[in-house]
């Protein structure tokens, strides 16, 4: 069933494409807009005399000459002869720090040029992310240069000095304490132990302080379930690399949940095709279609509200075949009430039998993992299942999660809001958080704020909470901050500012320390830095037992960015079974289930104003600049819905109107909506983009806020255009039906077939010959290899390329016309049925073909070939005929139809501040030129010049492209194909290699390693 030829049978990108929608056919046929290719008749033009023409010409020239200003004048050029010691013009500096984009707190290395940060990559010394960061982390550099960042403190929307702010607020705080009124601080998830200490000191100074913590993305249900089972809120990480079978229960653990960078790395260790193939087998049971689901060998559709019954049924079934733990009679009777037969019909007996069989055979070497959006009951059931299977040795107790400040409960917030309504809260501080946007609507937080005497918001940019605050205090960006992080035991991360604050902003801990001191004159920009060093010396330095003094250890720790602390591995405790009888068979939900998930690239809304992230296509739907309600094809048919239709989703008393996207592979009862969108108070880029589905959450859903049952939908009038990139740049040719089978754009196989016959992929390979003499590349020959077994479509490569190569943001309208400027894209193909599709991902970029069809057709020789195998682009020769793009079979060339920096959002990114994000090594392209992937030629030249200076050859794997550096799974390999010691040369000779559209004989230099699916032999026959 999953044989390569059968999966390649019909490749389709969308439901419309599969159904041969005439609009899609037309889009593929019409490469050019209407009117462009029509004939031109000079006789039909209006007449003008020669004299008049010359007169007008000379007048225009005279006017133009007077209107000319020095528009390129950027001011005085001052020689850098009094430069800071650390800065050498033309060379980069690297600083280790920690990313604050989310609560994972990955270690980062920030590249700066001439004192300004231009690129963020992972810190290779950090044991959790090991040199990789996510898409959000890559693009987060743009937040530092956001022109709409808060620059000055505001009081009732008027500028105020920091001195006055501190004076007034200290007075207000002291008055609140005297009157016995509450001072409430609302924060997001806390990852810094030093910030916690600041809170403690603040509470000491102002004893009526109460701290509340809330974030939409958190691990609180997992943590609470772990506590019930094992008596600790701190749960271990998972050794995914040691698991033979993994069952993910509505968990996007590979791409968007928990410690996904670490998970991706560990998981893909068992997807190696070089050497011995020791593949793991991934089952994903989910209601939505996730990127992890796309990686699955077997995907099972189970609605999130049914997951508890599903897992308990597996417990029952597998405990009959043997159990690592003893059940008492009450537990046994309770477990036996769950029957797997309820799922056989829905899922299919065959898949279910495979799952049960595999889990049974891999006892002690498998793992069942639940998603963080699921209820505590599901996590309890999963813990029980892992115990039955004896999988506890896959728990890594050397790296446990750390809870610095537990999430506040519903009761805490009820008490706070009651206090606010009764006027018992005098001061409310939003500590980098946005509760007006995030808190469930029926807490009535927004209306209660008006009863608070002084509301203070500390934020980087304007948000919903700031709009209701008296004081809005601007914060430093993460790259301007000192800090630390402690998210896993044994790993202490450090954060340092790589640039001094650009505007009149302060660090939030620094603001609190000033208020703690009791006087505005006590502020110094260094106060938190000193506090951090003091805390480091007292807590971390003492544990290290170092022979060096504290200062030296501090400086070396800052240099490394991380301190690894010795950890004692805890013993696995016996699971408590006291909670089991309390859980009963969950009632079936008659209505639909809304599953709210974190946006892949916007997070919880923090990155909504980041143009790069809004424009990266969604890994599954390829939608940009919007969110939507994803429905299964059957549900859409039932309600007579198609893409872009608007529906009203109702849950209890709340409703939202949102456009529909028909998503293959969804469970028929599930509606999947990503949050983070629908921000109303934010910069121009993110304002009114998408719909905010958090409005559906009521305080009754506080514990399980992501799964909303008994939902209903109804179609309403109107449509909303959703812009997707999935039909753009199509390679498949519909004119000749079987060509997409023969062309083999995606080639796949199974592990079993590969083990039997490693050369199966090349069985029917045609010999290619050339009628011309082939050119021999004697020196370096740059090439790339992409392993499709490891690509998870996380799009970190896309974001990294955008940052490295100064890719402009084009906006929703232009993406709708196929004009997005990404040099690398990830094509996603489906095969199989729309209900149960199999997904294949393929990063596509310029193939740097040896016989490049684009080079021959350029009338001005703006694109040519370098002696080291690169297809070059000379921007200043290009006159914009676009013939090269026309001729490119991979559709990877991007044309600047506009100067997008001028064109996008009224020159939003055309300003002195955002210009600082540009990489000075890469030309910033203007209107009318073609551009494409250059294999990071600037990095090649940098390595070459270093090698020449040092009098040596370039090492085999020395050049690292931006996409390769960013890829968390190392799916991308780049190097010199002529050097047999390079990794890329070894991969090019692998049995699983193929080239896309090889039969065209254009000799692409990007080699793909075919994906192997680890399916059962019965499916493979």
């Amino acid at each position, binding site marked *: 069933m999953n044989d390569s030829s059968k999966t390649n049978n019909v490749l389709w990108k969308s439901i419309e494409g599969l159904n041969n929608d005439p609009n899609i056919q037309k889009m593929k046929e019409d490469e050019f807009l209407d009117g462009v290719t029509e004939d031109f008749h000079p006789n039909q033009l209006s007449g003008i005399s020669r004299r008049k023409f010359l*007169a007008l010409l*000379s*007048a225009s020239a*005279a*006017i133009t000459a*007077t*209107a*000319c*200003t*020095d528009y390129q*004048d*950027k*001011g*005085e050029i001052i020689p850098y002869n009094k430069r*800071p010691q*650390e*800065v050498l013009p033309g060379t980069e*500096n*690297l*600083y*280790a720090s920690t990313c604050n984009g989310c609560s994972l707190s990955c270690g980062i*290395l920030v590249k*700066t040029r001439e*004192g*300004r940060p231009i690129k963020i*990559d992972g810190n*290779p010394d950090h044991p959790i992310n090991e*040199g990789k960061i996510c898409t959000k982390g890559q693009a987060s550099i743009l937040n530092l240069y956001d022109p709409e960042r808060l620059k000055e403190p505001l009081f009732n929307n008027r500028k105020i000095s920091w001195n006055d702010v501190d004076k007034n607020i200290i007075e207000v705080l002291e008055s609140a304490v005297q009157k016995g009124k509450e001072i409430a601080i609302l924060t997001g998830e806390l990852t810094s132990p030093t910030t916690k200490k600041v809170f403690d000191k603040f509470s000491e100074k102002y004893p009526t302080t109460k701290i509340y913590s809330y974030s939409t993305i958190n691990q609180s249900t997992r943590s609470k379930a772990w506590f019930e089972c094992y008596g600790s809120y701190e749960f271990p990480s998972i050794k995914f690399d040691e698991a033979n079978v993994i069952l993910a229960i509505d968990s996007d653990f590979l791409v968007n949940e928990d410690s996904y960078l670490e998970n991706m790395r560990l998981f893909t260790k068992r997807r190696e095709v070089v050497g011995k193939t020791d593949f793991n087998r991934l089952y994903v049971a989910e209601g939505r279609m996730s990127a992890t689901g796309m990686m699955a060998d077997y995907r099972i559709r189970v609605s999130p509200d049914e997951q508890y019954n599903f897992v308990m049924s597996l417990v029952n079934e597998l405990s009959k075949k043997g159990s690592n733990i003893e059940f008492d009679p009450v537990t046994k009777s309770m477990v036996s009430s769950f029957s797997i037969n309820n799922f056989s019909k829905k899922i299919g007996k065959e898949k279910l039998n495979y799952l049960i069989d595999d889990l049974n055979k891999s006892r002690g070497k498998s793992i069942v993992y639940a998603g963080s959006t699921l209820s505590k009951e599901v996590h309890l059931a999963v813990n029980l299942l892992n115990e039955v299977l004896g999988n506890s040795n896959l728990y890594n107790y050397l790296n446990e999660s750390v809870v610095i400040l537990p999430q506040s409960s519903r009761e805490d917030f009820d008490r706070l809001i009651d206090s606010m309504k009764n006027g018992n809260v005098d001061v409310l501080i939003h500590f980098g958080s946005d509760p007006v946007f995030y808190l469930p609507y029926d807490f009535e937080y927004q209306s209660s704020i008006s009863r608070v005497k002084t509301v203070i918001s500390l934020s980087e940019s304007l948000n919903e909470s700031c709009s209701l605050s008296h004081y809005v205090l601007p914060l430093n960006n993460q790259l*301007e901050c000192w800090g630390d992080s402690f998210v896993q035991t044994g790993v202490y991360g450090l954060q*340092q*500012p*790589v*640039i*001094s604050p*650009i505007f009149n902003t302060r660090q939030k801990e620094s603001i609190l320390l000033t208020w703690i001191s009791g006087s505005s004159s006590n502020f110094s920009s*260094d106060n938190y*830095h000193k506090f951090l060093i003091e805390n480091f010396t007292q807590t971390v330095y003492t544990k290290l037992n170092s022979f060096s003094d504290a200062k030296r250890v501090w*400086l070396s720790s*800052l*240099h490394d960015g991380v301190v690894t602390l010795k950890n004692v591995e805890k013993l696995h405790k016996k699971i408590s079974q006291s909670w089991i009888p309390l859980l009963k068979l969950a009632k079936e939900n008659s209505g639909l289930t809304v599953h709210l998930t974190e946006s892949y690239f916007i997070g919880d809304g923090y990155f909504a104003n980041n143009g790069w992230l809004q424009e990266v296509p969604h890994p599954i739907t390829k939608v940009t600049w919007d969110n939507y309600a994803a429905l299964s094809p059957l549900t859409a048919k039932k309600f007579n819905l198609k893409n872009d239709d608007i529906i009203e989703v109702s849950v209890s008393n709340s409703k939202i109107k949102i456009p529909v996207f028909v998503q293959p592979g969804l469970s028929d009862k599930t509606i999947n909506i990503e949050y983070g969108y629908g921000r109303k108070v934010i910069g121009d880029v993110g304002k009114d983009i998408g719909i905010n589905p958090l409005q559906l959450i009521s305080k009754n859903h506080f514990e399980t806020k992501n799964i909303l049952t008994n939902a209903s939908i109804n179609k309403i009038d109107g449509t909303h255009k959703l812009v997707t990139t999935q039909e753009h740049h199509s390679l498949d040719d519909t004119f000749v039906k079987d060509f997409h089978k023969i062309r083999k754009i995606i080639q796949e196989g199974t592990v079993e077939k590969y083990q039997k016959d490693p050369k199966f992929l090349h069985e029917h390979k045609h010999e290619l010959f050339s009628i011309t003499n082939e050119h021999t590349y004697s020196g370096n020959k740059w090439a790339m290899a992409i392993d499709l077994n490891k690509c998870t479509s996380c799009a970190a490569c896309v974001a990294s390329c955008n940052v490295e190569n100064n890719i402009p943001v084009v906006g929703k309208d232009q993406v709708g016309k196929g004009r997005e400027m990404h040099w690398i894209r990830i094509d996603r193909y489906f095969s199989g049925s729309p209900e149960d599709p199999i997904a294949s991902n393929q990063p596509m970029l310029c193939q740097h073909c040896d016989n490049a069809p684009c080079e021959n057709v350029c009338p001005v020789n703006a694109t040519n070939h370098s002696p080291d195998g690169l297809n070059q682009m000379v921007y200043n020769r290009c006159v914009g005929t676009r013939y090269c793009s026309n001729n490119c079979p991979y559709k990877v060339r991007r044309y600047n139809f506009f100067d997008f920096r001028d064109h996008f959002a009224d020159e939003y990114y055309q*300003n*002195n*501040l955002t210009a*600082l994000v540009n990489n000075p090594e890469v030309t910033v392209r203007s209107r009318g030129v073609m551009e494409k992937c250059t294999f990071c030629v600037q990095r090649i030249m940098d390595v070459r010049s270093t090698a020449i200076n040092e009098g040596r050859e370039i090492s085999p794997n020395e050049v690292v492209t931006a996409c390769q550096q960013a890829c968390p799974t190392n799916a991308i390999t780049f190097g010199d194909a002529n050097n047999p010691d390079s990794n890329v040369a070894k991969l090019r000779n692998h049995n699983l290699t193929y080239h896309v559209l090889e039969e065209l004989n254009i000799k692409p230099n990007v080699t793909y390693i075919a994906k192997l699916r680890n399916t059962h032999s019965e499916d493979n026959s």
Partner: protein
Amino acid sequence: MNKLGRKKFFTVTSKGIFFTLLGITLPIKFLYSKNIQKNKINIAVNPDAVKRMNKV
């Protein structure tokens, strides 16, 4: 009354437009350059930050 010929009319008109526009654009250019100076972004390295010595 002196009649102004077409040729002279055109010459005078274009000269008039030229000098008028020059009189408007030159001050604008002067003010624009000043604006650039005002919009300069000052960046500075934090002196307490520790640079990585080894290249990755």
